[in-house]
């Protein structure tokens, strides 16, 4: 167990973050437009309560962070758990893939955008054969596209027509 006087900065950041969110909730609620008619419980009451709740929790967690860290922390969340080497790059690739599909899906269609997501994610998880990954990705997304469009009626964006 860590000493009681140690300040764990990363945990303190979380606690302060929660307090910040609670402030957003409360201030936002107080700025709601006034309501017309008979109001039994205004639209701002519940959000303020949630904000107060979250703020209290954030305060307590920040206090814990300043006095030796969160209590009863699972061993795997020990802050000596280092990030894996190359893990950050992998996470960046996965993030890039998800951004790509979000931005491109309505532009180049589901098949290509999801194929791109597949390739980027595979890269993130360690695969070093980008062209092959892209090919496999498209081989996966193409039948899914047919299945969803023709079979299930869920319209995924096309590149050209209903077949691709």
């Amino acid at each position, binding site marked *: 167990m860590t000493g009681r006087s140690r300040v764990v900065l990363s945990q303190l950041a979380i606690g302060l973050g929660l307090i910040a969110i609670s402030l957003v909730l409360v201030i936002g609620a107080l700025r709601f437009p006034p309501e017309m008619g008979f109001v*039994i*419980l205004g639209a701002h009451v519940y*959000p303020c309560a949630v904000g107060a709740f979250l703020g209290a*929790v*954030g305060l307590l967690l920040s206090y814990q962070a300043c006095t030796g860290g969160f209590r009863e922390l699972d061993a795997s969340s020990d802050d000596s758990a280092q990030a*894996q080497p190359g893990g950050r790059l992998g996470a960046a690739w*996965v993030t890039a893939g998800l951004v790509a599909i979000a931005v491109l899906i*309505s532009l180049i269609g589901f098949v290509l955008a999801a194929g791109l997501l597949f390739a980027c994610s595979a890269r993130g998880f360690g*695969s070093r054969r980008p062209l092959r990954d892209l090919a496999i990705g498209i081989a996966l997304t193409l039948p899914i596209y047919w299945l969803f469009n023709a079979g299930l009626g869920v319209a995924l*964006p096309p590149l050209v027509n209903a077949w691709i």
Partner: protein
Amino acid sequence: MDILLSLAAGFSAALAPINLLWGFIGCLLGTAIGVLPGIGPALTVALLLPITAKVDPTGALIMFAGIYYGAQFGGSTTSILLNTPGESSSMVTALEGNLMARNGRAGPALATAAIGSFFAGTIATVLLTLFAPIVAMLALKFGPAEYFAILVLSFTTVSAVLGASMLRGFASLGIGLGIGLIGLDSTSGIARYTLGVPELVDGIEVVLVAVGLFAVGEALYSLLYQKEEASGRHRLTSLWMTRADWRRSIPAWLRGTLIGFPFGSIPAGGAEIPTFLSYSTERKLSKYPQDFAASKGQGAIEGVAGPEAANNASATGSLVPLLTLGIPTSATAAILLAAFQNYNLQPGPLLFQTSGDLVWTLVASLYIGNVILLVLNLPLVGLWVKLLQIPRPYLNAGILVFASIGVYGMRHSSFDLLLMLAIGWGGVLMRRFDFPVAPVIVGMLLGPMAEKQLRNALSISQGDWSIFVTQPIAAAFLGLTLLVLVVPHLLHARGIKLQEDD
């Protein structure tokens, strides 16, 4: 007997060939996705939700039953073979089951998990059949004050009882409540916390948050913080259980079911408590204590049989509050609730009155789903094992593609995909700092419900807040809430912890 008649009608609807087909497909898909490491039943149901979008309600319900059970079995398979439980409730299965697998007894472990689940599921469904209508009738007497009190109790138990830290559980709950606030307030018509973004006016979908936290969050977290585990090849010798296996498993199944169902059906949180309790019970009662993991044994079959049965019974039990009160008590139940709402079905006591036939069809399909699971999955275990041999990069990439389909399929919104990514990163933070995830989902769904009931209650009482303590049932639930908050601290002070200790 009214109930039997309704159930019979449900069966006749469920047994139509086309519906059976949907059941098979659901079971297959549920198991296939549930098998994938890191994907638990909640996420599986969430991912497969868009597929059911265009199927008619009866067929869709049957598909859900198949997916639900398939996902649980898939999760057990991964726990036993790969030691990667998809959910915390599968952790004990992984403990004993994987030990058995590493000693060449993967087959019997899987068999006892499947048969135990069937056994528990069937009995639990019978109990559901008997109790649900009674609870629904009682629930009709509940007014908004009672509902509000139950919801507060549910919030508290989900956040406070599970996991190591009550405070962090409450933090997750708070975040979930906050997310639930985003969107149009139905009573006043004010758009809350939408930051001018039009997509947020309808609020954030539960499935989006679930997929973001579970799929994307897990993927990112495993990249950042988890070491590559060499997944050993497991010799799948034979699936048959020996006489001794049967003798040890059957009582464990019974005990597991009896432990699991009550826990699942009360508005307490989740399937972890019953599975841990079952494991402890089996360990204490076993005639072969030397087999257990903690005694460095070969893996005790009752350590798989009991918890698996408890898990399944608890999952079925959680359908009781879901169907009768409309209150989900686990992340999976929350997703099912979202699915019901997609079909404009509002679970609750009125559901039995207005769409009674649909409810009974669902119950019938639960029975059928259990049978399908047993018949289909045991022989196909070899296939599921093959699935696990797909190289990890492709497996994870495929999961992310499915996650994107699931989220995009709901509202065809690129914003939703970006939101999913952001929530995924939030999930990484939560995992890193040991914040439980289930309270977020429960908070999101139940928060708006609680606000509505609060308003209704105050309308009826003309603004009098004492209604919550003067109405006896409501006061009782609130009293229980206080107990739940206080008792763990008292126990803890006496050195008793509500966690599995080894």
